[in-house]
Each structure stands twice: as C-alpha cells, then as structure tokens.
C-alpha cells in the first residue's frame, strides 16, 4: 500500500473494537485518512504521520473523545485508535465517514459543485456561523478555521466540519496557530500575549464566510499581486502588519484588480448592504480591535434574514439578494440589469424580552415560514421544519397564499372585511392587505405590500 497502513491491517480502540483498514480516502498535512470496516459499518480513521503523533496530540484526542460536542455538524473524534502491532506509539482517531455528496470550498471555487444556488449557499453560511457558535458557547476555540475543514451539501445547505482535533478549551495550548490566510493579524504578527482564542476564531470565521460568498480572500487584492516573492515576510505583511480590506471605504490601496480578480468585484456588487456592512466591520475595525469582530450570533441572524430576502427578478428569473426588511434600497438585477420588482412580504412579529420584534419574509415561489421564525431562540436552524408554505396564485400574478403545514389551525383576521376565521391544517390563507395570521404563543404574521 502506498501509505502508512496496509490493506487488511487491524487497528483497535480502547473499548476493544477492531477496525480493519480497507483503503485510503486521502493523505494530507497531518496524516492519512483511511476507510475502515467495523462491526457497525464503515468508519473513517485519521492516522497521524509519525512526526505529528505527539503525546500532546494524543492527550488532546483523548480529551475530545471524553467531551464530545452534541452537534451533528461536526465530524467529532469518536475514539482513540491505536495499532496493536506498533510499538512506536502511533495513533489516530475514529470518526464518521463524510458522505460523498458533501463538497469542499475549493470545488465550489472551481465551479465543480452542481446544484448550488444563492439560497443554499446562504444556508451553508448560516450553518457555518451557527456551528461555530455551538463550539464557542462551550468555551472551546477551533484554532484552525480554514476552507479545507468545511464541507457542504449543495442539495440542502447542510455542512460538516472536519479536523476537529484541536478544538479544546481556549486556555489550553495545542501548538496550533492556524492557517496563515485565516490567522488574525495579531497572530500573524506574533504579538506578545497573542494566542488562538475564540476572538481569533471570529476573524477566521469572517474570512471563511467572505470566501464562501465572494470566492476570494478579503485581503488579497492589488497588494497581493504586487508581491514578486511570496515568502513569509510577504504573507506577514499581507495578513498581519499591513492588512487592508479589498473594499475598505477609507483605504483604496488594495482594491481587487479588474481583469484579474473579477469574480470578487462582481460578487461584492450583488452582496446585500447588510452583509457588506458586516464584512466591512470585520475587515476594517475588526482587524485591529478583536472585541469589534462580528459575533457568530450576528452572522447567523443576518444570514437567516438574508435568506428570507432572496427574490427572483421578474424579467429574467435570476435570483437576487435584496436587503432584509421594509423599504430596501432598489436593486438592479445582476443578470439583465433591470430593476428588480419587490414582491410583497410577510412580517412576522413576536415577543422578545418584553418588546415586540419583527422580521420579514419576501413572498416568492420558494418562500416558507419555518419554525425558527416563530421562536425567540433556536440552537439550530432547521429548514426541514416548515410551518407555512407560500403558494403563488395560479392565475393572478403577485397574489399569494400561505398553506398551513402544521397540525394546528391558525386564526386569521381580515381588517378589510373585519372577519375572523380559522385556517385548518393543510388549508390555505389568501394573503391580502390587512391580513393578520395568529400562529399561537403571541406570534403573528402581517401581510405587507412593500
């Protein structure tokens, strides 16, 4: 076998499980990943290269196995794996197999991922922010967020985060400082007292989200192309000592270069202002002041709202991002260059900390009301938990209905006719001006023309 472990070799876990090596999934920087057969079906084993199999790494794996993260978006280490025939102390860890329908970001950049669209990409971004929120909420830092660790399913936006073998409490030293392009400036500069923390993870997360949506690094513009010798000093300058955001409103020195970096120029143009503002915060003031970096909750809530504001151009049918909420700035379709007509919206209103808060869902053919719209807090957005399905009127353009996808009736008020009626499960409420739907628990939806 062209690797460390031959086919048929048997590895074990501390619990006595026997793992038979079948073949390799691939090799990488830290080790090789093998497919192994077990009593419970196929699993994957990451087997460390000899130089990486340190006592410190082994202790980290044992810690991670003992303190699992209860979030299915992480391919978490399930057990330490050792080789009974090996006396040199080599080891690895057991994890689930990544399904074949999950792709990595380089494949997205190469346009090799079929079926991905704006909506699914937004769910990927939301899931990514939410998954790291779950990790950080436990006081753990990931330490090496980069595009090699994130995998996504283009069919539904589900994600898997791999290589979780350094995600221990942020006060522990794992020796991992991250990947240069994703490292916070203070880590790149090796500032005194700088070390990988949740705050440095937030910088890497912002870079990852920018790359996911813009397909480009946020600091790699003209300054990168001017570098003749791309060595350590150049990388330190680009990401550490003189980082400048491509679209920094106060510093145009590192703008993307037309003709050579056109993708990011085009993607930034169609990015909704609410996201542009967050990226600008993350890569201007957030570069110098870690406490000003954009939190995972802000990313999550913003992506959730952006998802509800994706609309199709009435002229050419292409999807466009518009700003969430009422009266967004006008948007020109990226494809046909005509003004995108805004469809009506459903304004969801609910109680939150003794006040009423609202959010909007633009009424399009694919729009739905989900369970997370009705709840104050959710640990995980689940786009399979549908409360109501928007249906376009079969003949009257611009008119919509909302089908009750729950098991309980809704109460619907019509201010125009001053009528009150129930919409049973499976039935549809016709959405008109003045309509108010009660979902229960104080959550209401109002139909708005703009």
């Amino acid at each position, binding site marked *: 076998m062209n690797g460390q472990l031959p086919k048929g070799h048997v590895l074990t876990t501390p619990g006595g499980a026997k793992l038979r090596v079948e073949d390799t999934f691939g090799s990488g920087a830290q080790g090789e990943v093998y497919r192994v057969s077990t009593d419970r079906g196929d699993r994957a084993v990451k087997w460390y290269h000899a130089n990486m199999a340190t006592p410190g790494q082994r202790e980290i794996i044992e810690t991670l196995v003992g303190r699992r993260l209860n979030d299915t978006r992480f391919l978490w280490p399930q057990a330490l794996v050792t080789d009974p025939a090996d006396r040199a102390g080599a080891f690895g860890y057991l994890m689930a197999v990544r399904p074949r329908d999950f792709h990595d970001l380089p494949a997205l950049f190469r346009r090799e991922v079929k079926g991905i669209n704006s909506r699914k990409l937004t769910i990927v971004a939301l899931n990514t922010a939410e998954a790291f929120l779950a990790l950080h909420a436990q006081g753990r830092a990931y330490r090496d967020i980069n595009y090699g660790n994130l995998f996504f399913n283009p069919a539904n936006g589900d994600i898997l985060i791999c290589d979780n073998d350094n995600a221990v409490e942020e006060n522990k030293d794992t020796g991992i400082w991250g990947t240069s*392009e994703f490292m916070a400036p203070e880590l790149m500069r090796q500032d005194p007292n700088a070390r990988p923390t949740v705050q440095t993870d937030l910088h890497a997360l912002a870079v990852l989200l920018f790359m996911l949506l813009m397909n480009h690094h946020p600091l790699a513009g003209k300054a990168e192309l001017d570098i003749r010798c*791309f060595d*350590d000093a150049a990388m330190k300058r680009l990401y550490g000592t003189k980082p400048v955001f491509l679209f920094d409103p106060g510093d145009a020195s590192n703008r993307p270069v037309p*003709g050579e970096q056109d993708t990011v120029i085009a993607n930034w143009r169609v990015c909704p202002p609410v996201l542009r503002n967050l990226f600008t915060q993350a890569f201007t003031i957030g570069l110098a002041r870690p406490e000003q970096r954009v939190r995972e909750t802000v990313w999550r809530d913003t992506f959730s709202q952006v998802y509800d504001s994706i609309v199709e151009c009435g002229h050419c049918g292409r999807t466009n991002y518009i700003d969430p909420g009422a009266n967004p700035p006008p948007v020109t379709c990226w494809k046909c260059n005509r003004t995108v007509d805004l469809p009506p919206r459903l304004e969801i209103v609910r109680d939150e900390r003794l006040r009423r808060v609202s959010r909007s869902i633009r009424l399009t053919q694919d729009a739905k009301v989900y369970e997370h719209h009705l709840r104050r807090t959710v640990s995980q957005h689940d786009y399979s938990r549908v409360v109501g399905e928007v249906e376009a009127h079969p003949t009257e353009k611009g008119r919509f209905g909302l089908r009750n996808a729950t098991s309980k009736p809704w109460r619907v008020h019509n201010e125009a006719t001053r009528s009150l009626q129930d919409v049973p499960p499976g039935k549809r409420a016709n959405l008109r001006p003045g309509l108010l739907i009660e979902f229960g628990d104080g959550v209401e939806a109002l139909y708005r023309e703009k």
Partner: protein
Amino acid sequence: MTGSGPTAWHVLRGSVRGLNKKFNQDSLYTASVADGAALVLSVADGHGSAAHFRSNMGSRWAVREFADCVTPFARTVVDRQEDPTTWLALFAAARALAGPICHRWRERALLYEAGHPANGAAAGERNPTRADLIPYGTTLLGLVVTQQLLFCWQVGDGDITTSADAGAPPRRPLATAEEEYGDDTDSLCEPEPWVKMRVHCQPMAPLGPRPLLIANTDGLSKSFEDERGYLKFATDVHSALERQGIDKVRLLLEGWLTRAAGKSGDDTTLVGVYAGE
C-alpha cells in the same frame, strides 16, 4: 540531499513531439535548489489547437514562472523541514502560492502580448487588463521535493503520480473525481485560474525510502486504454529503475515516450525523480 531519507535523487526527463504535430508544444523544467537539498520539477502542455497558436510560448513561460515562484519557497522548506511543527504552515504557504504562480504567468504573457498582440491590434486600441490570453493557453504541473516533504500543484489535465515501491499501486493525489476528457481542460489562460489549481502536500516518509515521483502531460496517460494501464506504466518504470538502474531507464525513456506519443498522437512529456542508491 542529506539526512535520514533517500541517499540520492535521480531526475528523469523527456519530451517527445506528437505524431503529425509540427512542433512540440509541451515544456519541462527541472532544477536543484539549495545545493541539491530540494528539487523543482514541472511540465506544461500548451493546448496546441488553432485558437491556442502561441501555446508553445505559454507552456514555456509556465514552467519557468513556476520555478521562479516556488524556488524561494523550496529554500524555506529546506530550512524548516527538520522541525515538524512548521509543516502545517509550509503546507498553507504552498496552497497560497497558487495565486502568485498564475499571476506571474499572466504577467509574462501580458508583457509579450503588449508588444506582439495576437490579434494584431494597434497600440492605441489595446486594453492591457482585458487582453485575450487564449492563444497562450497551457496546463501546468509542478513539484517541489525535499527529503522530508512533497508539494504538488496542478492546473488542467496531466498526471502527478507517487509510487512508494514497485510492488504497491501508485497514487495520483491530485486526480479529480470526474477526470477531464477530450480536449477540454482547465488552463492558465482562463480568468482567475488559481481557483482551478489543485494543491497537494504530504510528508515523504509514507512513500518509503525509494519512491518514484512523476509529473507528465496527458499525452502519456491518453496513450493507455484506461487509468489502470497508465498506473501499470508507473509501476513498470519503478520496477525498471530498481532492477536496471537509472542510467538504463534514462536510455529507455525516450522510446517509451515516443511509443506513447504515437498512440495518443499528442506531445508527451515526463519529469520524474527517483530516490535510489
């Protein structure tokens, strides 16, 4: 090279014009860096069709710009390879080189295009940032090999293959799930080609003490019926190196490539490095 790894490195290189081709549009480059502590190898396949009528230039610039770009990096690797805690950073740096490699090729092509526009445009009519580089289209495959570490970069078709020993199946670490077919290939002449650049990094240790590493243009792999045939070729070369030695294989290589070029009809180029006695 010194240390606990292979005792000597032997470079293989050969390039043969395809059957019925007017001239060879492939290029290759090999060089030792840091007094032989690192090797830089690359091949490039100029697309060669009517639309790519300057692709022999494109492929030549590709291998040279690749070498110029990765040589400082190779020196850094030599300096740091004995400390495994630096490896992850080196792997990240290798991935980050995709942009600069492509940018250097583009600059080189733009420089030539400015003086010799492929479409014959007069000086006042040229737009240097929107220049059409399709005539220069080429693939690029490159390696940096040191005693401890291996780095591979690839845009477009062709193969980078590692063989740990002649008895084990070789691997193509940058093979894609869906292989490119026909004459369609990713190219340095496309917009933002670095997004198409695949990068692979790994320690040398899993490849054993006498590995063979090969980079070749697709003229070679297309001469076989399927991937198995190509991988058997790699195994056979490795066996021949172990049984007959490097000098004999160097003599035989041109004949093998000529036979391949005859079957595929395409220019066929190979660079390789073998760790032997």
